[in-house]
């Protein structure tokens, strides 16, 4: 038996990341130089002492499956417990895709029951944050709650983008509204729940019988528990937390790593973020290189200028090339004299000599047309070609003569 196990919802498509999630699920999107988004919740689990994690996959699971493997990089290769990838499967009574977040857990009741846990931690694979779930569990127990929801104070202007919680003086949740037009609180749900498993199990079964339900935690399970006066409490979290579901928020969260005043520290030895990494030599900056305010990892070779940017493994930046305010994912080659501004290059993009990608906002006549530019996996941008700001490229771009 395990006291608490985690279930990580990783089936989302992340359609608002467009070209970046054509071939992989959102939690597998590379982040921060050598990580993928899912490394953050997974590392939080092991750092919090949770050694059993079910990962629910559905959309484009190939990359994610291979990445997780036996869980060894996260120390989750265990004899009892460890990490398990749980795709939808065929049952005697038929088979179903995961219809919603709650249904995904419902379909894996047998998995959870096999560990006979007292508590279940529900996580999602699309947030960047560091959090000690053990403290949240202590809080859940001390509060004798049926469900504890981690909450964060957000600016009032942003409340319409979140699930908003209203609490009484003791932190007991009195009202929950999904993306309210007019919020009465600014406590947003972080999508992190701890349930007492017996309670959740009963509500999942009840929800499954309701044919009109969308089988979603925020829309169905939480409101149903509130309606029947269960004890739901808000666990206040202070610290860095970011939903990276859009191109802009993904770009910002990466850049936050370069900002010393943002409390997201991946160099902290006491709370390491683990990742599966390729065996690559140290990176090399030549005498031609000019690097400032950047993150660079193993296998990179830099002869050009890198400023306010993140280079993932095996990125080559040629002489005279300039990479500014950009995120360059593994295996990209930026040839001599190319310019990259405010862009996200997905894996294995080749930017030929003299090509120009993205633009700087200060050079725009119409700022409305400016935005972060995205070049999809494996794309080649021809010599001298131009890719404008805010563009979303998933096909090769021809040479400009």
């Amino acid at each position, binding site marked *: 038996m395990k006291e608490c196990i985690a279930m990580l919802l990783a089936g989302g498509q992340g359609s608002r990341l467009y070209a970046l999630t054509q071939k992989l699920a959102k939690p597998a999107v590379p982040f921060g*130089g050598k990580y993928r988004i899912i490394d953050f919740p997974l590392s939080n689990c092991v750092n919090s002492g949770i050694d059993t994690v079910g990962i629910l996959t559905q959309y484009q699971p190939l990359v994610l499956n291979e990445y997780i493997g036996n869980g060894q990089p996260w120390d989750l290769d265990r004899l009892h417990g460890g990490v398990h990838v749980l795709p939808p499967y065929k049952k005697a009574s038929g088979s179903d895709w995961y219809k919603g977040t709650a249904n995904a857990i419902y379909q894996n009741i047998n998995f959870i029951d096999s560990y006979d846990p007292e508590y279940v931690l529900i996580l999602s694979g699309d947030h960047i944050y560091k959090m000690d779930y053990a403290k949240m569990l202590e809080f859940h127990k001390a509060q004798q709650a049926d469900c504890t929801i981690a909450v964060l104070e957000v600016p009032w202007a942003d409340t319409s983008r979140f699930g908003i919680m209203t609490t009484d003086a003791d932190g007991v949740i009195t009202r929950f509204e999904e993306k309210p037009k007019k919020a009465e609180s600014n406590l947003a749900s972080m999508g992190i729940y701890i349930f007492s498993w017996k309670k959740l199990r009963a509500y999942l079964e009840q929800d499954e019988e309701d044919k009109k339900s969308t089988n979603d935690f925020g829309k169905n399970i939480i409101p149903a528990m509130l309606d029947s006066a269960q004890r739901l409490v808000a666990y206040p979290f202070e610290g860095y937390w970011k939903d990276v579901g859009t191109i802009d928020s993904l770009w910002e969260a990466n850049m936050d790593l370069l900002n010393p005043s943002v409390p997201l520290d991946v160099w902290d030895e006491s709370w390491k973020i683990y990742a599966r990494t390729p065996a690559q030599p140290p990176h090399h900056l030549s*005498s031609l290189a000019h*690097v400032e305010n950047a993150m660079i990892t193993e296998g990179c070779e830099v002869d050009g200028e890198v400023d306010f940017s993140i280079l993932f493994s095996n990125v080559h930046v040629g002489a005279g090339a300039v990479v500014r305010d950009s995120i360059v994912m593994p295996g990209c080659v930026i040839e001599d004299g190319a310019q990259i501004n405010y862009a996200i290059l997905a894996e294995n993009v080749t930017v030929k000599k003299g090509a120009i990608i993205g633009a700087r906002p200060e050079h725009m006549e119409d700022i409305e047309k400016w935005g972060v530019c995205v070049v999809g996996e494996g794309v080649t941008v021809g010599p001298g070609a131009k890719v404008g700001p805010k563009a979303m490229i998933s096909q090769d771009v021809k040479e400009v003569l």
Partner: protein
Amino acid sequence: MVNLNAMGIVFPNMHDSVIPDLTAHRTMASVPFAGRYRLIDFVLSGMVLAGVQNVGVIVKKNYQSLMDHLGSGREWDLARKRGGLKIFPPSGYSSYEYHGRIGALKGILAYIESAKEKYVILADCDVVCDLDYAELMERHAASGADVTIAYTKEKMTPALMNNNVSLAMAPSGRVRELMINDEQTGRRNLSMGVLVMSREFLTETIRSAYSRGLVKFEQEILAKNLDTIKVYGYEYTGYRSRIADMASYFDANMQLLYRENLNRLLPEDRPVYTKVRDEAPVRYTVGCKVKNCTVADGCIIEGEVENCVIFRGVTIGKGAVVKNCVLMQNTAVAPGVRMDYVITDKDVTITEGQYLGGTRSFQVFVKKGSTV
């Protein structure tokens, strides 16, 4: 390449004495190199790339750091049910320190005899290279040799003179003369300490040699019986560095500031595996100045750095000026420090305002764990 059918035996303590500063607390095999590796990584990775799945490591002394580095062998894909990595500390029944290869091998004779592989590769760790063990094996099998020794052509240096095995060969490649610490100058064929033979030949040789009190494999067995034992040389022409003293160790690191060398030693399609430390990428801050450096993960660089090999987890503070240095794991350089031609061992702290300077031919060495 598939099913190479050879086992490997590695001698981590051979040549410890050539760099006493670095081997005070470790074996030659666990000497840090090239930012994120230990010397043994090149041997193990090369063997594994060639399909070797059974490797014995015979340690003699100072082997804590090596055991810590190797663990279960998982990083090299050598945590196996069948074969895999086995570390042999000095055995109980022969509680004295062994002498020579034969003494070392005698201690693990039962292990060698119970192996299934047809061939054995013996390897030292003092030559850093990208040796293709599969090709070496093919050549050994094709030539019909009893023993094949991998060698390189080297220009002799004073450091090499005290610690070498040189080969003189007939045009066929058969070794006619094998000389130990020969003091001739000029270009010589120097053994890389990598020898291939059949397992049967090895076990028979160990038995007969040991009973006659012979312990030195090259000197007492091979060199004296070149008429009856067919010894062949295999020339390795790829990138390598011989670690023969502190100066050559420093130079071997510095050579990796040339990208061409880095790529020849560590080609993209022939990975060298090492212990994973789960370090974050390197952070270069606003105002840092970095030219011609080879840098491993986990570092935070705020100062000015030029011509340096920087290992994992090194921090260099604001205003520090560090040139021509090899900084090993977790070296912390405080703001304002100036350093030129310095080698720092692991966990060294250089406090604010210090100046440390060596020269191109004589570097300042700072011991493991010390604070300057």
